[in-house]
C-alpha cells in the first residue's frame, strides 16, 4: 500500500473509523478540498462499535419541541455536570446532522406521510429520537462508511493499530502504528491528529461493548500529558441480556415495555420515578417517568431490588424482567425487530410470548479526553471527538440517544478545528517520523516482544483488572472498595511490566494487539478508580455510599486525571453554567 516512509503524511489524520471518525473524515474531505485526510483504524470501518447502537439519535424536529427543552433534559440528565455551552452546540447542530444523514441515504423509519419518525427515550421530555428500527447505529455507520467511499481524498489505513502519538516541539505531529497484517511499524505524520477511538467498556467484566472497546485513544492522550476528564462516571445500562451482556435497547421501553421484579411489580414506582400507568392507558409510556427515567436511576434501582431479594436468580446472575408482550407481534417486528432476534437467539425467549430477562451492564463512559468546545485538547495539534472525548455534554449521566448525536456533531466540529490548525502549521520532518518509528519498535522489542519466559498472561491480567473495577468501582462504591481497586490496579501495572507474549510472530499478531490494548485498559482503569476515590459526593452514575449526597459547593466540577509517576494526579475545573442553574433532577411527572 505504501512504498516509502516519507509518503506517509497527511494534513489531518483521524484515528478511529466509527461514527465520529467517518463523520470527521467526510467533513474534511467535502468541506476542505485539497486537504489530505488519513483515516486509521484497528478494524475495518464497518466493524466499529457504532454498529451496535440500537435505539436512535436525538434531535429536535417536531414543532412542539424546542432546543431549550432538549438542552434542559440533557443537563438535568447529566446531574448538572455537563458544560452548558457544549450542550447548546449539541442540540443546535443535531437537527442538521440528522438531516445530513438523511440526505446521505440513511434509512430512517418514517411516518405514513413520509416524514421521519421520532420515538420517546429515557429522560427526554418529548419524542425526539430519530431511529432506523432498532439498528440505528448499524445504518448510521454504514451510511457514513459508504458515503466516505465517494471521497478520494480519504486515505484509509484499515487494521492498523496506533501505539503512540508523535509529540515534538510541544505539538502532536502524527502517530506511530503497526500494520497488523504485516507487523510492520511505521510513522504517519500529520499536522493535526483527531482521536475518535470510542470508549473502553471492556475494562469491566460485563459490558455491552464489543471486544474492540479498550480505551486506546484515551490512553494515547493520557500518556501524552492530556488529562482524562470525569472518568469516574461510567454508565450501566439497565437492560442487558444475562450471560452475554448483549444490549436490549431502551427503545423497548420507549415503545412501552415495562420492568418487573420477581413479585411481578413495576418496582420503579418505589424509587421516586412516578406512578405506573395502566398498559392500556393512551398516555403510557409517560415521558420522564418509570421505565422512561434516566439510566443511572434505573440501574441503581436494580441493585436495590437485588439487595431486597426481589430479583430472579438465574444461571448467569440475577435479573428482572422486561415485558413487551402487550405491544403485540406486529409492533415488535415493525419497531424493535432486533430485540426479538437477540432474545430468541441468545436467551431462548420469544418476547412476543414471554418477558425478557435483563440486568445492569456497563455500557458507556461519560468521561474521556478533556477537550474544549471545538474538540481541541490541551496539546496543540491533538483533537478528540465521540465517546473517547469529554466535551462535556453528558456530565454525570448520559441520556440515551444523545451519543449518536454527539459523534456526528462533534466529529464534524473537531474535523473543522483540525483542518484549520493544519493550515497554520508545517508538516513534521522525515527525521522525526523515522526516529519515532524506530524508538517505538525497540520499545516493543524490549518489552512485550522480548524473548523471555512467559510468567504473566495478557488474559490473566485483563480479567483481574475487570474484576477489580467491577468490585471496586461499580454502580455503588465507597472509599474502601475504591482504595482496594486502586491498589489492585497498581499491582496489575507492575505485573504488566513482566508480561511476555507467547506469540512473537509478525503476521496478524492478535496477542500483541490484545496486550497493547491491555496497556491502555490499565491506564484508563487507573484513571477511573482514582477519579472516583477523589470525588467524595454522589452525582449521576457516581454513587458513593459513604457520601450519598450531591455536593455542589465542593464538586460542581470536572475531575481531571493527569498521568504521573505512581498514582495519577487529580485536579478539577469548573463546569460551564450558562442558563440553567443547578437544580433537583425530577422524574415522575410531578
Amino acid at each position, binding site marked *: 500500500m505504501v512504498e516509502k516512509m516519507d509518503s506517509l503524511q497527511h494534513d489531518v489524520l483521524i484515528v478511529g473509523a466509527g461514527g465520529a471518525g467517518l463523520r470527521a473524515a467526510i467533513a474534511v474531505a467535502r468541506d476542505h478540498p485539497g486537504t489530505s485526510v488519513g483515516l486509521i483504524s484497528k478494524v475495518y470501518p*464497518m*466493524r466499529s462499535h457504532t454498529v451496535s447502537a440500537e435505539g436512535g439519535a436525538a434531535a429536535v424536529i417536531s414543532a412542539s419541541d424546542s432546543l431549550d427543552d432538549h438542552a434542559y433534559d440533557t443537563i438535568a440528565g447529566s446531574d448538572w455536570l455537563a458544560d452548558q455551552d457544549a450542550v447548546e452546540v449539541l442540540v443546535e447542530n443535531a437537527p*442538521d446532522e440528522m438531516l445530513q444523514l438523511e*440526505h446521505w441515504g440513511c*434509512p430512517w423509519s418514517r411516518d405514513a*406521510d413520509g416524514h421521519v419518525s421520532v420515538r420517546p427515550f429515557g429522560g427526554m421530555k418529548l419524542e425526539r429520537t430519530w431511529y432506523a428500527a432498532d439498528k440505528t447505529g448499524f*445504518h448510521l455507520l454504514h451510511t457514513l462508511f*459508504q458515503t466516505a467511499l465517494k471521497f478520494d481524498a480519504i486515505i484509509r489505513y484499515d487494521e492498523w493499530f496506533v501505539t503512540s502519538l508523535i509529540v515534538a516541539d510541544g505539538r502532536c505531529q502524527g502517530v506511530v502504528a503497526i500494520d497488523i497484517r504485516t507487523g510492520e511499524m511505521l510513522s504517519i505524520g500529520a499536522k493535526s491528529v483527531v482521536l475518535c477511538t470510542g470508549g473502553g467498556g471492556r475494562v469491566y467484566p460485563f459490558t455491552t461493548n464489543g471486544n474492540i472497546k479498550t480505551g486506546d485513544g484515551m490512553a494515547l492522550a493520557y500518556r501524552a500529558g492530556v488529562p482524562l476528564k470525569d472518568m469516574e462516571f461510567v454508565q450501566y445500562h439497565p437492560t442487558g441480556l444475562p450471560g452475554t451482556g448483549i444490549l436490549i435497547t431502551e427503545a423497548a421501553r420507549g415503545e412501552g415495555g415495562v420492568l418487573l421484579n420477581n413479585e411481578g411489580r413495576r418496582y420503579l414506582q418505589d424509587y421516586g420515578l412516578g406512578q405506573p400507568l395502566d398498559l392500556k392507558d393512551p398516555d403510557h409510556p409517560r415521558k420522564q417517568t418509570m421505565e422512561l427515567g434516566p439510566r443511572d436511576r434505573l440501574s441503581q434501582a436494580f441493585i436495590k431490588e437485588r439487595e431486597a431479594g426481589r430479583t430472579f436468580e438465574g444461571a448467569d446472575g440475577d435479573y428482572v424482567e422486561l415485558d413487551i408482550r402487550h405491544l403485540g407481534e406486529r409492533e415488535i417486528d415493525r419497531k424493535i425487530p432486533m430485540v426479538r432476534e*437477540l432474545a430468541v437467539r441468545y436467551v431462548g425467549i420469544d418476547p412476543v410470548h414471554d418477558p425478557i430477562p435483563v440486568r445492569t451492564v456497563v455500557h458507556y463512559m461519560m468521561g474521556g479526553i478533556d477537550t474544549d468546545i471545538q474538540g481541541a485538547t490541551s496539546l496543540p495539534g491533538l483533537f478528540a471527538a465521540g465517546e473517547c472525548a469529554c466535551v462535556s455534554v453528558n456530565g454525570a449521566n448520559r441520556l440515551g440517544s444523545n451519543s449518536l448525536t454527539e459523534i456526528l456533531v462533534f466529529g464534524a466540529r473537531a474535523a473543522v478545528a483540525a483542518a484549520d490548525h493544519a493550515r497554520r502549521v508545517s508538516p513534521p520532518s522525515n527525521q522525526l517520523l523515522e526516529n519515532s518509528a524506530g524508538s517505538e519498535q525497540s520499545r516493543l522489542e524490549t518489552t512485550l516482544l522480548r524473548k523471555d519466559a512467559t510468567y504473566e498472561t495478557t488474559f490473566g491480567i485483563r480479567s483481574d483488572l475487570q474484576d477489580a473495577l467491577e468490585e471496586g468501582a461499580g454502580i455503588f462504591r465507597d472509599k474502601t472498595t475504591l482504595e482496594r481497586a486502586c491498589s489492585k490496579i497498581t499491582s496489575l501495572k507492575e505485573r504488566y511490566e513482566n508480561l511476555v507474549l507467547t506469540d512473537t*510472530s509478525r503476521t496478524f499478531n492478535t496477542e500483541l494487539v490484545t496486550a497493547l490494548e491491555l496497556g491502555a485498559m490499565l491506564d484508563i482503569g487507573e484513571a477511573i478508580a482514582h477519579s472516583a476515590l477523589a470525588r467524595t459526593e454522589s452525582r449521576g452514575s457516581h454513587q458513593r455510599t459513604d457520601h450519598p449526597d450531591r455536593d455542589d459547593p465542593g464538586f460542581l466540577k470536572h475531575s481531571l486525571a493527569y498521568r504521573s509517576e505512581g498514582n495519577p494526579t487529580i485536579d478539577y475545573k469548573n463546569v460551564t453554567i450558562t442558563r440553567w442553574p443547578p437544580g433537583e433532577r425530577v422524574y415522575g411527572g410531578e
Partner: protein
Amino acid sequence: MGVSDRTVLEVYRYLPENQTEPTFQTYEIDSQDNWVVLDALNHIKAEIDSTLSFRWSCRMGVCGSCGMMVNGEPKLTCETFIRDYDTMTVRIEPLNHFPVIRDLVINMDDFMEKLPTVSPWLIPDQDKPLDEGEYLQTPGQVARYKRFSMCINCMLCYSACPVYGLDSSFTGPAALALAERYNLDSRDHGRKERAATVTAHEGIWECTYVGECTQVCPKDVDPAGAIQMLKLSYALDWAKSVVMPKRGRS
C-alpha cells in the same frame, strides 16, 4: 443436554512466515451449553493457545467480523451454537474463496476494492440544501430497499458463491445487493451511473442464480433476489433502448 460438554475443535492453522501449507490443530475443551463457536475460540485463545488468530468484536451478529467455515458451511461464529452440532468434532476453517492471511483471518481486499465500483452511496437528482428538510419517503418506499440495506459485509455470501469461487473477478453478491439497495431508494437517481459496473461482464450477468448467497446470508438480505431484480431492470432498459431508441428511459 448437560451444562457442559466435551467438544473437539479441529481448527485450521496457518502462519505464512513459518509454514508453506496449512495444518489442522485439535483442541479438546469443555464447552458450555450456551456457547457459540466464537466463545469456544476465545476460550482456546485465553486458556490454551494465545497464538490462535481470528477476528471478532460485537459478538451480537452485527459487526460482521467473525465469519468462518463451521463444518464446511459459512457461518457467523457469534451466532452459531455448538450445541446445534450433533458431532463431537467441529471443524473451523477460514471462509472459502479468500486468500488466508493467517489462521482464520481472511484477506478481504478484493471486496473492499470492488465495493466503491458500484457507487454504494446516494446519488440525488440535485443537491438539496439542508434547510429544505428531509426527502419524504413513505414506509412503503423504505420497505422497497430496506432488506438490501441490511448487509453487514460479513463475506459469507462470497464464500458460498460458486461463481466467485471459480472467477474472483465477479463483482459478487453483497456489492451487487448494495447497488440495488440504492437503485430502489426513492431518493436516488444513480442507477444509470451504476450500470457500467453492474452490467459489465463481471457484474450481474455472471450470476447463474444458484442462490447459495441468499441461503447463507445471516441477515436475510437476499442478494440473489437483488441480482435478479437488477437483471430484470437493466434488461428492460436495454429492451426499451432497442424498441424505442429515441425515448430511452427517463
